[in-house]
């Protein structure tokens, strides 16, 4: 398979994730869509690494995975904190930075 196929698939997955962030309002689903976008970036990184025969891209992809894990942990912690304070779990209602 040509590398182009992987890159176009990666762009498609990224656009899907971006559409999810734009149209969904539950913070949990928005976090899932961020995962989709990060994974699309990973796929592009690995495709470029394969195109150049270079393994450094795989190290980058693993670091991206670590960052995604951190983002999930902090984001889910925020959602649990919002739920405990009985704040609305809807990003349109969470407009102010005051708790």
């Amino acid at each position, binding site marked *: 398979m040509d590398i*182009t196929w992987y890159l176009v698939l990666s762009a498609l997955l990224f656009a899907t994730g971006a559409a999810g962030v734009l149209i969904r309002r539950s913070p949990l689903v928005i976090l899932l869509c961020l995962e989709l976008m990060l994974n699309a970036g990973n796929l592009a990184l690995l495709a470029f690494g394969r195109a150049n025969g270079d393994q450094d891209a795989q190290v980058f992809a693993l670091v991206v995975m670590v960052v995604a894990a951190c983002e999930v942990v902090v984001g889910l912690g925020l959602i649990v904190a919002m739920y405990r304070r009985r704040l609305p779990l809807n990003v349109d209602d969470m407009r102010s930075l005051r708790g």
Partner: protein
Amino acid sequence: MEEVAFFVGAIGALGGAIAVIALRNPFYSVLALVVHLVSLAGLFLILHAEFVAAAQVVVYAGAIVVLYVFVAAYVGGIEEPLWEPIPGQRLLGPLLAAALFIELSIAVLGSALSSLDSQGPTIALGFGSPSTIGELFLERFLIAFEAASMLLLIAAVGAVVLAGRRAAPSEQEQP
């Protein structure tokens, strides 16, 4: 054979991604994410990234999805309102995403990289194996490795601070 594997993985990844954003129940969205992640791990295998594929299944489909399932069960079904706060949001969102896809495709296909229309160079036997990735991590990318471990530690402590704290008595009275 490789084409068949690619298209099976691509359909799985794309179908999972669309299911994540289309299903109304967050619990089903999380399950669709598992389909997406496992298909993507298959694609990583075709790209000779064995260790990344294994880490994808173990870290994502194993650990992170369990966290998501736990929080989705804890928070319960989040009801999204049927009315749209921003007029035309359901129409404009996919439109903007389609524009983003076209733009990314033009950027990739228009870059005229010589390696785009090839399958990549022939690679050595140990390409992407755990031993080579481990060597890279512990020699060339040692600082990134240590920074990643510090980041994980800080995120774990931050999550405990964020979610573990009980609300103060004065805050509990507020709605």
